[in-house]
């Protein structure tokens, strides 16, 4: 593990109860993997299922955590990020309360402070959701 749950707030701008990522478990320059446990207090549960927009938020926060971590020594440190668009979204299944999801994100393209990111959310081996997001970061 690279970043524990108790330290994740140092790397993403969100604060409870909007934090949708617990741990950063893998990270290189372009690919990050996170985990997130869906507890009973999650704001985005609907009939004990986590709604799809929370999974998209999870992808964005996973990207933010990975980018902040891997570029922590850069002269340009990220401050905030904005979701600029979502493409090619495929939803197979929603995770349920009490489950842990694993999220893999990969930077497809980067231009200045903008990132095109591919994200996939898994529960175990099962692919739940995949999409591309456009993120803009501020420094």
């Amino acid at each position, binding site marked *: 593990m690279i970043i524990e749950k108790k330290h994740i707030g140092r790397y993403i701008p969100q604060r409870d109860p909007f934090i949708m990522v617990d741990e950063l478990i893998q990270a290189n320059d372009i690919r990050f993997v996170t985990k997130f446990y869906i507890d009973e207090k999650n704001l985005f549960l609907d009939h004990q299922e986590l709604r799809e927009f929370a999974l998209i938020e999870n992808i964005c926060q996973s990207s933010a955590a990975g980018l902040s971590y891997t570029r922590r020594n850069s002269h340009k440190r990220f401050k905030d990020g*904005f979701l*600029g*668009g979502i*493409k090619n979204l495929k939803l197979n299944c929603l995770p349920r309360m009490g489950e842990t999801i694993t999220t893999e994100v990969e930077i*497809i*393209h980067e*231009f*200045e402070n*903008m*990132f*095109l990111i591919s994200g996939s959310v898994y529960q175990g081996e099962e692919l739940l959701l995949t999409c591309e997001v*456009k993120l*803009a970061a501020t420094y």
Partner: protein
Amino acid sequence: MNLDPEVLRREIKEYIIEELNLEDITPDDIENDAPLFVEGLGLDSIDALELVVIMERYYGVKIPNEEVGRKVLQSINTMVDYIIEEKGQ
């Protein structure tokens, strides 16, 4: 790769419409010299990322920084000129 300007203009317009999901817009609606951002086609700064991706993915042309991006991504014609300039070398 076909570097005929007319072919490139048509292709780029089709890629822009597809990649940016511009509904109700056809290639004929996009003027070659019209600004792509704000006025004209009305794209925003985050759409610039998609244009950069189009240039690299389909034409193998990199836009190295924001300064070059501002010049190249002004219009369809400036994008075409840059592709021809880069690939013609």
